[in-house]
Each structure stands twice: as C-alpha cells, then as structure tokens.
C-alpha cells in the first residue's frame, strides 16, 4: 500500500502530461477548482510546446493542506495521456513516482520507471463514452476521487462550465468523471491519499498571474488596452476584452505593437488610462513609441511578459532576461519605473499601483512578469480593494494653460482636451512650456530635459521597498526578483541554514533607497536569476556599488525548481 504524501512531504505533486489538443489545460482547470473547493491548497504550473496539436505538454499540480505556491521537480503521481514523454519529464520520474497510464498507448515507454505503474485503459473508456477526448476527464475523476472529493463538486463544475452552452456536454463529462471514480475504487487497494481539508480555503480565489494583472489593471482604472497577440502576454488582452462592456474598457487587437503603443499614447493624451501588453519581440517594436512617451510626458503602463529570446527563442517558455530591455529601451534619456511582481497578489496590487504611478509622474511604468508567473495559479484570499484609489492626476484647464510648465519636481499638471478651456499640446520634438516651437534653443532644451529627469527623484522616493523574508539577523542574503519569489522562499526553508534571509527586489528601477542597507548587512550575497548574465546583480552593482558574492543563474526556458535551487545553494557551502 502506497500512502501519499510520501516521506516527510506534506504535499502531493501531480503531473499530468499529454499532447496539445488532449485537454491538459482542462484537467488543470478541473483539478484546481474542484480540489480547492474541497478545501485543499492547490498550485498549478504548466509548460507547453509552441504548437496547437500533438507533442507533449505537462502541467504540475501540487496539492496540500498547507499553502503551496512553488514549482518542484518531484513527481509523486504522474498521469500520462500520451506516449512520447520528453526527456525533461522522464528525468523527473523517481523511484517514488506512481504512474497511471494506458499500456495500449504507452507501450513499454516507461517500463522499469517509477514505484508502480497502474495500467488504466483510459482511451478505451473514453471511446466508450463517445470520444477519445474524454480521457482527460476520466483522469481528472481518478485524481479527485483519490482525494476523496465529493462527486457533486465535479457536477457543479461541469454545469458551470458547459451548462449554458450544452446540457448534454455536462452529462457526458459527468459520466467520464464517474468512470474515473470507478477506476479509483480499484486503485484504492494499492494507493491512499491522506490529506486534511480546510473549509477556509473553499471560498478563496484561484487565479493565474495573467488574471491578476488584468484585474489589477481594472483596479487601477484601466479603461483602454491595446496589444498584438504574443505569448505569454496575450491572456491579459483577452481577459480585458472579455469584460470590456462590463467595465467600459476600450480594447483593440492592433495591426502591430507599434500601433498598440501609439494608440495607447493617443488614449492617455485624450483622458484614457491605457495599458499595452506584450512580450520581448513585441516590445522591441514599441520602443520607438516608448521614446515618444518619454518626451511627450505621457503616462503609460506596459505589461511586459518575458519569454526566452533572442528573437522567437522559446515562444511558450519562461525567462527573466528582459530587465535590461525594459531599463534601456527607447532612444534618448527619460525617466521610467519598473515593477516586478513576484506573486499573484503582487501582480494584482502592483498593476493597480502602476496606473497611479504613471498618471502621477507622466512616465512609462513597466510591469515585468514572465510566462511562469502569468500561467501559474494558486489559491489565495480575495484581493482587498480597501484603500485602493484611482488617482487621475488631471486638471481642468483654462485658456492660459501650458502643458509643459517647468516645475521643481518635474511634473507639469496634465490637462485633457475637452476638460476646461485650455488647448492641450503634445510634442515629439523638443519644446518649450507651451509645447509649440522652441526654436531649437539649447537653453530651453537643457531646461526641459532636466525637468523631465527631475522626476526620477520623486519616483525613487515612491519606489516600492524590497521585501525581506527569513532571519532578520542574516549573514547570508539571497536576492531575487519576479516570479522566483515563492521558489526561493521554499528552497530557503528547506535549506534551513540559520542567519539566512531572502531579499525580494520588488521594484528594480528606481531601486528603493533601503536596498543598499539590506545588502550592506550581508556577509554573503547570493543572486538568483532566470537569465545568463545576472542583469539584476549588475544593476544593483551600478546603483549601489555592491557586488554579489555568488550567482545562481538559469536560462533553460524552464523555471528553476525548488530542488534545483536547493542543490545549488548547498553547493555554495555557505
């Protein structure tokens, strides 16, 4: 009899794998929602190939009575819907892994691997139910049954998902899930799952980083979104497009990213609160527009979802290699801010904040995410809107209004065409206070440039401080940014070295002034980044003069796992 979780683990890591088109995403949706509603903590992260049919994709679902939010290497339960597992997955199968698969499909592919292989004729059952495409739902049923989840939760799920469209689809899916329950009863002779359910979790939210960016945008008063489809940033465009009527959002899939950025500029100019959403390649096309944002002093919110480059790179995978891009994009010099959410909560609150920050300082503000963060999900308490505000930072103008009036903090009050009597200028050429000709006067140029750059001081004062986790009395300080947050936290816990802390840089630029103090207190600084050149460590060196002692860098296209990080930390012998 195998009991899960095994050993000292408190969670079960389930990996479901199959071809694109076999509905792995559906399994993730079902398991996530249904297990959470049964009172279990869930975390899901997917990795998928850049193709619509075939291949081999997988999703990892961690289930626990304790909160779980990080990606692990370990597979406790592997469900295979198709043969042809990529090496990347095969290598993760250990002697503890329990495998459920269909011998008819899998053949000898996984022979000798794992602790036990349960042959379940998934395809046969699915065909009996009317289509091989039901194999995924049968598999989902097997898992929820192992977790002792009441069938009614699945019934409710299918009714919500298909009820309005097609009642017969609800019945068919329920039948498929029931088949899973039957099979699971046989499995119960060999395998049991022991896990406490907690009713508090039932009403929590389960959403992806992508959803959180979209909801955070709405909470920031976003009422315009422009983009051109590009993984992993498209989800934000689709999400906001789907709620456009409800929340009064202008949405447009433009002809290219150049147009997206320029529409957003026109939008802010005329009183909208616009966001663009894209990934590296698309953002390259936006960088000319970014420069226009700079001289025009337009607010702008840019959601930049990173994926591995150069060029098309690994289109559906993850990396943290566009910090330098966000930092240096656009010709000329102008101030900007870069926020890097590390969690789904932060994706919401930082996106909300980005709109106010952009509106206040009239600068571009980046929300720098990545595929891993955008596509993963876990349960969390509902966001609180208490204390959140949409700050418009616009004024009603009179006839004497000058758009680019020189001020001490560099911020010129922003008027909007149609709100008041003033005429509103926006100029791509260097300009004087009125925004009209400045005769290319070097003095006016110097003054205007200095005015714009002065905003950096305010931006720095308003920068989000880094977050410290672990022992405040540290001598070893791990630093990271963005999506690795939960992974570093979990690895640090397992590392269990006393006097160790993790400093999460939440705003890479401008850096909060406290960052330097945190760094100075450490004897050893370990930089952890998902890129090959330590972009954050280099920026920190540039801005604080402090050098990191060690660098743990990965750029495989896969997010670093807790175990991989742990091994690398142990190798440091600190």
């Amino acid at each position, binding site marked *: 009899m195998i009991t899960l979780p095994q050993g000292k683990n408190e969670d079960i890591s389930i990996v479901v794998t199959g071809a694109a088109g076999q509905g792995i995403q559906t399994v993730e949706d079902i398991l996530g929602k249904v297990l959470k509603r049964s009172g279990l903590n869930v975390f899901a992260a997917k990795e998928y190939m850049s193709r619509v049919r075939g291949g081999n994709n997988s999703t990892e679902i961690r289930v626990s009575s304790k909160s779980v939010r990080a990606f692990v290497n370990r597979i406790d339960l592997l469900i295979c819907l198709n043969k042809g597992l990529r090496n990347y997955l095969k290598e993760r199968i250990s002697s503890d892994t329990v495998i459920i698969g269909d011998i008819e499909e899998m053949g000898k592919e996984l022979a000798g691997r794992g602790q036990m292989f349960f042959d379940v004729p998934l395809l046969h059952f699915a065909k009996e139910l009317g289509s091989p495409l039901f194999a995924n739902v049968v598999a989902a049923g097997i898992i929820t049954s192992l977790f002792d989840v009441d069938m009614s939760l699945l019934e409710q799920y299918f009714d919500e998902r298909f009820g309005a469209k097609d009642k017969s689809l609800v019945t068919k899916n329920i039948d498929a899930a029931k088949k899973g329950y039957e099979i699971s009863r046989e499995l119960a002779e060999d395998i049991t799952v022991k896990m406490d359910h907690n009713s508090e979790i039932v009403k*929590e939210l389960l959403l992806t980083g992508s959803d959180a960016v979209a909801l955070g945008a709405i909470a920031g008063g976003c009422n315009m979104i422009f983009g051109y489809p590009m993984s992993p940033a498209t989800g934000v465009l689709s999400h906001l497009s789907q709620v456009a*009527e409800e929340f009064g959002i*202008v949405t447009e899939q433009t002809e290219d990213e150049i147009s997206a950025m320029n529409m957003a500029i*026109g*939008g802010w100019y005329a009183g909208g609160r616009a966001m663009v959403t894209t990934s590296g390649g698309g953002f390259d096309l936006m960088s000319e527009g970014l420069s226009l944002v700079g001289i025009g002093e337009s607010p702008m919110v840019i959601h930049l979802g990173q994926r591995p480059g150069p060029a098309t790179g690994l289109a559906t995978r993850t990396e943290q290699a566009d910090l330098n891009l966000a930092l240096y994009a656009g010709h000329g010099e102008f101030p900007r801010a870069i926020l890097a959410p590390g969690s789904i909560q932060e994706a919401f609150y930082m996106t909300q904040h980005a709109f106010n920050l952009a509106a206040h300082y009239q600068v571009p503000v980046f929300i720098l995410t990545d595929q891993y963060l955008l596509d993963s999900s876990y349960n969390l308490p509902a966001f609180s809107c208490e204390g959140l505000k949409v700050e418009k930072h616009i004024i009603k103008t009179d006839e004497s209004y000058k758009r680019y009036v020189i001020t001490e903090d560099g911020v010129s009050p922003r008027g909007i065409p149609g709100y008041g009597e003033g005429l509103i200028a926006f100029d791509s050429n260097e300009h004087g206070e009125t925004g*009209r000709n400045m005769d290319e006067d070097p003095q006016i140029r110097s003054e205007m440039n200095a005015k714009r750059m002065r905003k950096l001081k305010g931006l720095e004062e308003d920068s989000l401080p880094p977050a410290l986790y672990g022992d405040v009395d540290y001598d070893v300080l791990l630093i990271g940014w963005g999506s690795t947050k939960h992974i570093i936290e979990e690895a640090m816990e397992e590392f269990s070295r006393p006097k160790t802390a993790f400093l999460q840089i939440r705003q890479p630029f401008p850096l909060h002034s406290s960052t330097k103090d945190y760094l100075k207190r450490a004897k050893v600084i370990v930089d952890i980044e998902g890129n090959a050149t330590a972009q954050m460590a280099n920026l920190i060196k540039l801005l604080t003069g402090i050098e990191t002692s060690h660098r743990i860098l990965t750029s495989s296209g896969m997010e670093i796992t807790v175990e991989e990080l742990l091994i690398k930390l142990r190798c440091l012998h600190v």
Partner: protein
Amino acid sequence: MTDVRMFDVPGPIDIMWCPGCGNFPILDAIKKALAELDLTPQDVLICSGIGQAAKLNHYVNTHFLHGLHGRSISNATGAKAANPKLVVLDVGGDGDRYAEGGNHIIHTIRRNPDITALVHDNRVYGLTKGQASPTSPMGYISPTTPKGVASLPLNPIALAVSLDASFVAQAFAGDIEETKEILKKAISHKGFSFVNIFQPCVTFNKINTYQWFKENTYYLGDDYDASDRKMALEKAFETDKLPLGVIYLNNRKTFEESLAAYENSDKPLYDRDISWDKLTKTFERFV
C-alpha cells in the same frame, strides 16, 4: 460659422516651410473648413507624424499631438476612442503615411475610426531633403536614387477604395476653395475620411509643380456617383488626368460605435469612475 482667426496661433510664429510651398494653401483651407463647420479650437484635435506636412498642427490653434513618423494615425485613433466627442484630424506626408506608416493606413481604413486623415502628397521627402517617396514616379531621380526610382509608385486612391474605405477624396493644394469644400465633407463624414492632397514641393520636386498638377488633374462632375465602388476604382486607375473630388463614399459602422466601452455610456473616459463593487463581485468568478 466661427471666426477663422480663432484658428491662428496667438503671438508671432515662425512657419518653417519654404516660400511658395503647397503646405500654405492647405493650412488656409483647413482653418477655413474648421471655421465654416462652426467648430472652435477646443473642439478639434490635430494629430500629425513627422515631416514638412506634419509640422502643420503647430500652426493651427487647436489641440495638437505631434507624434512619430508614420505613427500618428494610431495616436489619432486612440485619442478618438478615449473621447469620441473630439473632432480628430490627422496630417502626414506621403512618406509618413505610405512608407513608414503603410501598415497603419491599411488597418486604419479597415478599422474605420471617425477621423479625417490628410496626406500631403508632394511625391517626395521634403524634410529629409528630396529623396524619393512611395508616390514618386518610376525613374524619379533623387539623391538616394541617382539612376531613378526602380519601384512602381503606390496608388493611394486605389489602395483606399480597394479596402472599402468609408470616404476617399483627392484634392489639389493649388485650389484652396475646392480643397476647403472637400475637407468640410471629409470632416463632416462619419467614419474614416481619407484625403490625398496633391501638394507641390517647390524646393525638391521639379516635376510635379503647381502647373503640372493643374494640367494633369480634373474635378469629378456633379453627375459622378461616389457610392459606386467599381466606378471609383476605375477613377483611381486613370492616369491621363488624375481625378479630384470625393471619389468614394461608403457609410459603415465606425470603430468607436463598435467599442464595448461605449455600449452603456457615451461619457468620455476621463469623466468615468471605477465601480469597486463591480470589481469585487468579479472576484467571485475565481472562487
């Protein structure tokens, strides 16, 4: 009718065009058209790209957005979408619209925002000193094409008509009165109005002069039916003499009219507030 002088920029301004440039009469025609349409400076936004033509909005007393070479049609679309009450014009040269911004003009025609786009077609790059443009004829000799342009010229009218543009017209800067009348129609038209304006560049284009355009153009008669797309295409392909006037008209739903954001309210975006209740309720979808 408002006073045309309202559209003069107050104070002394230094207009950076060469004496005799075809941009001057277009500037006059625009101001007159706005006044005759009873508009005030506060009603109007003029967006522009970069080039000699695109400097125009610095010389008109309205709201203005002077953007990037090729891109301002997107600025104009975004601005109109944020506040559909604004009367939005967009100005650019032939290089601006047909070369650097070629993709945007195509898709803006498809999108059909209610804006008026004027292309000052001087068949040359004025600001960068005389290089060939997409509308320069084959064989046109310029500093970057010493042996003459080898590519075929672009046919703006055919392009617009083939894309079923909502309003397509052609004008000649040498005729302020007629240009003004065409502009009035274009601005009043609901939907994307595309106006290609022949604009002599007296400094660089020694071929397509005022005289040349006068001799090689003609006005469409009163009996011309602009709703006939086939006829419009035929006109677009005429080479003997180039047609002037409203060439094609096609009333269809505008971009702003199809935006979900205006389904329940016609308020401009700056005048709206977030509903926290609604947002909080949305969270329940993720339970």
